[in-house]
């Protein structure tokens, strides 16, 4: 019995010219940071840390606490940007959680919702999201309809594809000043990597 659909379609003989693609070993952030992004910190910061994350991913949950500490310790030299990268096939609540955070953005409460979601990763069903909207004193009926709004859906999708185009391969993935952070993301590693880039920025 065939479990999978493998249905070849006949396209006919086609003449193709070949070209060699350049291989980039270190991925770069290809989609620049804009006003549409969620940004904590000032534009003049020496270092910008971008995270592609998934609210239901346990490793992102660990990273959430680490980033808070790093932000606190590095201060104004660091700007943090969060982009959605929900892996909905392995995390059934991830896409809705991301939409919840974007729906809170409409009411200027993105970071508040972001924090609540990462602090409650085991409760991300739709009714949980609604209860967080109450907790954050959002207009709940607007929140519920915004979660289903095209622009919210689109924002999550755009973030995801911007990640795919930048070589994001799992969550969390970090970029430090546009260059992918290939190492681990313990407090020590992340802080050291950020400080190294900050030092370069100061010298330049």
């Amino acid at each position, binding site marked *: 019995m065939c479990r999978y659909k493998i249905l*070849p379609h006949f396209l006919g003989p086609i003449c193709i*010219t070949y*070209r060699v*693609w350049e*291989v980039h*070993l270190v991925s770069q952030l290809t989609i620049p940071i804009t006003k549409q992004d969620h940004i904590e910190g000032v534009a003049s910061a020496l270092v910008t840390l971008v995270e592609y994350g998934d609210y239901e991913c346990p490793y992102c949950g660990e990273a959430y606490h680490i980033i808070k500490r790093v932000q606190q310790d590095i201060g104004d030299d660091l700007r943090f940007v969060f982009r959605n990268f929900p892996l909905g*096939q392995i995390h059934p609540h991830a896409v809705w959680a991301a939409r919840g955070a974007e729906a809170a953005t409409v009411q200027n409460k993105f970071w508040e919702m972001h924090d609540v979601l990462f602090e409650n990763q085991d409760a991300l069903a739709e009714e949980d999201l609604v209860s967080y909207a109450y907790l954050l004193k959002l207009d709940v009926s607007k929140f519920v309809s915004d979660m289903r709004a095209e622009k919210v859906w689109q924002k999550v999708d755009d973030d995801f594809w911007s990640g795919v185009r930048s070589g994001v*391969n799992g969550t969390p993935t970090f970029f430090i000043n546009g260059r992918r952070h*290939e190492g681990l993301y313990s407090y020590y590693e992340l802080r050291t990597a950020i400080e190294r880039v900050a030092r370069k920025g100061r010298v330049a």
Partner: protein
Amino acid sequence: MTARLTHLREGSRAPNFTLKATPDQEVSLDDLLDNPVVLMFYPADFSPVCASELALYNEILPEFQKHSAQLLGISVDNVWSHLAFTKDINLHFPLLSDFNPKGDAARRYHAYIEDEGEAARALYVIDQGGMIVWGYIAPTGINPGADGVLEALESLHKENLLAA
């Protein structure tokens, strides 16, 4: 230290293989070549890095379908492991078992790490004519992402349009 593997050259013919997709179904590359085929060799089922690579490809399957491309995952695990893994991470594309003779397909694609007894993370895009149009073998421990494969499929699509 293992020597760095070099992928098969762009423009060379993709070696054929016949591998099991399920306990009672085999898949041959040649049978799929009316459309582009993407091969993703990976070391093993259930290892965390691979899971995120496979999970990512699983998420972006609609993009492969847009190009009528068939994605195949290949590792040296047996079909029973593949079935369990498929269920575990809710995969929607076939995993082929390069189990017997072990690593035979991976070897043909220069993607077998002899010391480890498993495949490297290698990616190939093969056109409808059975030619390799893009290949990449990631260094050990690096999860290659999907940007390169998608760019290759898009270029192939544009070239097909120009040739049509």
